[in-house]
């Protein structure tokens, strides 16, 4: 593992190098335009000017766009939760990692660009807006990069950033100064983590109470209109044809009449709880707790607390954390003969 000291501004030369050497055809990164900062895909190295790779913004989990990536080689600069989703999709055989270079950095939380106008990415400007952070970020447990091609550390680094990689060929031709994070990086991470864990605990105990009764569960989901946005933006919900798009799961009027006549009445849209529980059981083993689903919900259903509870319940029982490593197998495709025997 090689580590280098680098300034934010110099990251541009790292990306330029990747494009100019034809290691990749494009870079997915963020760039400032006249109307704000936007995620973009850049193929022309001259247009890298003005990129803001560490702007703390999140409007959706970009891993969702990488499902079934083709043969064109790309580098993507993403938040840790997006990088974890990419690793998880690799294990689900939905992403070809040979054509993808994943670059991810420490994340002190992100804002929804619809809530916060980001004029400058200076630390002061960000600190000022802290109370507007996305809820997912205030309870995030994995805000440092998972296993990626190039990791960028900012926490516990004196002045600038540290770049870490075991794929030195990606940096060939650049003259970078070796350097390491300071000794108190771990302590600083722990400090943030403790804060987030306390907030998470509160969130989970609140939702546990709600879900523990049938009436609470109904109250939680009752305004859902089954628009399926939460499914569509979720990077881990990857099926090409979802059950809820098949004739059995996507009821037309006549089907609804048939269903209604079983009990004499049918709530419409049908299958709200069935839909959510199905997503729960299919996604919980790999949920990266990014919060994209909740933010895409037009009905303000608090989905994130549900996922915070269920993802840790399910992943911890298998001693697994979604997307942290590329090679650790998915919990549901492996087993031990002598486990869960009671």
């Amino acid at each position, binding site marked *: 593992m090689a580590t280098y000291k680098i300034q934010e501004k110099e990251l541009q030369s790292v990306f330029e190098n990747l494009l100019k050497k034809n290691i990749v055809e494009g870079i997915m990164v963020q760039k400032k335009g006249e109307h704000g900062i936007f995620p973009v895909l850049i193929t022309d190295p001259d247009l890298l000017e003005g990129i803001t790779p560490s702007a703390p913004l999140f409007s959706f989990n970009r891993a969702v766009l990488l499902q079934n990536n083709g043969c064109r080689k790309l580098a993507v600069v993403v938040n840790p939760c997006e990088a974890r989703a990419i690793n998880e999709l690799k294990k689900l055989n939905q992403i070809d990692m040979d054509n993808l270079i994943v670059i991810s950095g420490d994340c002190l939380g992100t804002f929804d660009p619809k809530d916060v106008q980001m004029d400058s990415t200076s630390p002061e400007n960000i600190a000022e807006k802290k109370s507007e952070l996305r809820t997912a970020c205030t309870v995030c447990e994995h805000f440092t990069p998972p296993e990626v091609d190039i990791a960028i550390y900012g926490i516990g680094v004196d002045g600038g950033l540290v770049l870490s990689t075991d794929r030195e060929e990606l940096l060939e031709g650049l003259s970078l100064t070796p350097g390491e994070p300071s000794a108190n990086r771990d302590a600083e991470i722990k400090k943030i983590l403790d804060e987030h864990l306390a907030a998470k605990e509160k969130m989970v105990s609140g939702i546990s109470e709600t879900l523990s009764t049938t009436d609470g569960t*109904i109250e939680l989901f*009752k305004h*859902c209109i089954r628009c399926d946005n939460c499914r569509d933006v979720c990077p881990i919900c990857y099926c090409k044809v979802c059950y809820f798009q098949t004739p059995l799961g996507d009821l037309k009027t006549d089907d609804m009449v048939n269903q209604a006549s079983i009990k004499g009445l049918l709530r419409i849209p049908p299958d709200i709880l069935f839909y959510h529980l199905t997503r729960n*059981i299919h996604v*919980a083993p790999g949920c990266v707790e990014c919060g994209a689903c909740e933010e895409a919900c037009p009905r303000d259903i608090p989905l994130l607390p549900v996922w915070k509870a269920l993802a840790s319940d399910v992943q911890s*029982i*298998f001693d697994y954390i979604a997307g942290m490593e590329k090679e650790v197998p998915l*919990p549901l495709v492996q087993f*031990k003969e002598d486990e869960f025997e009671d």
Partner: protein
Amino acid sequence: MDEKSDFEPRILGFLCNWCSYAGADLAGVSRFQYPPNVRIIRVMCSSRVDPMYIVKALTDGIDGVLVAGCHPGDCHYIEGNYRARRRMVALDQILERYGLKDRVFLEWVSASEGKRFAEVITHVTEEIKKLGPNPHKKKWEI
């Protein structure tokens, strides 16, 4: 009589073709008595049961669900039941939050265990009777 003692639960049983369904058959030909509350669906393997089938039944108001397969080590497909076991463990975690966990059972019944099949059905039926009806049966709002 109160609602519970009156209550005849409706239980869905997913039985694997090679062991548990044959065990049920043996219970039948051996004329072992067991409660008539379980409706059986034959599947080729316990691992054929996507947990969403269970969730579908529960949200539609079924009182209990039993999944039964070959004993660990005896799966016709070598390892299907080990996979089923992990899925059921994951499902348990989720249903526990929703207060539905105690309505779902995973049991191993071999083709020669007709008696055990009758015992499992009796046990599951009794447990569900203790729990009372699935609250989702009456609730239609979601």
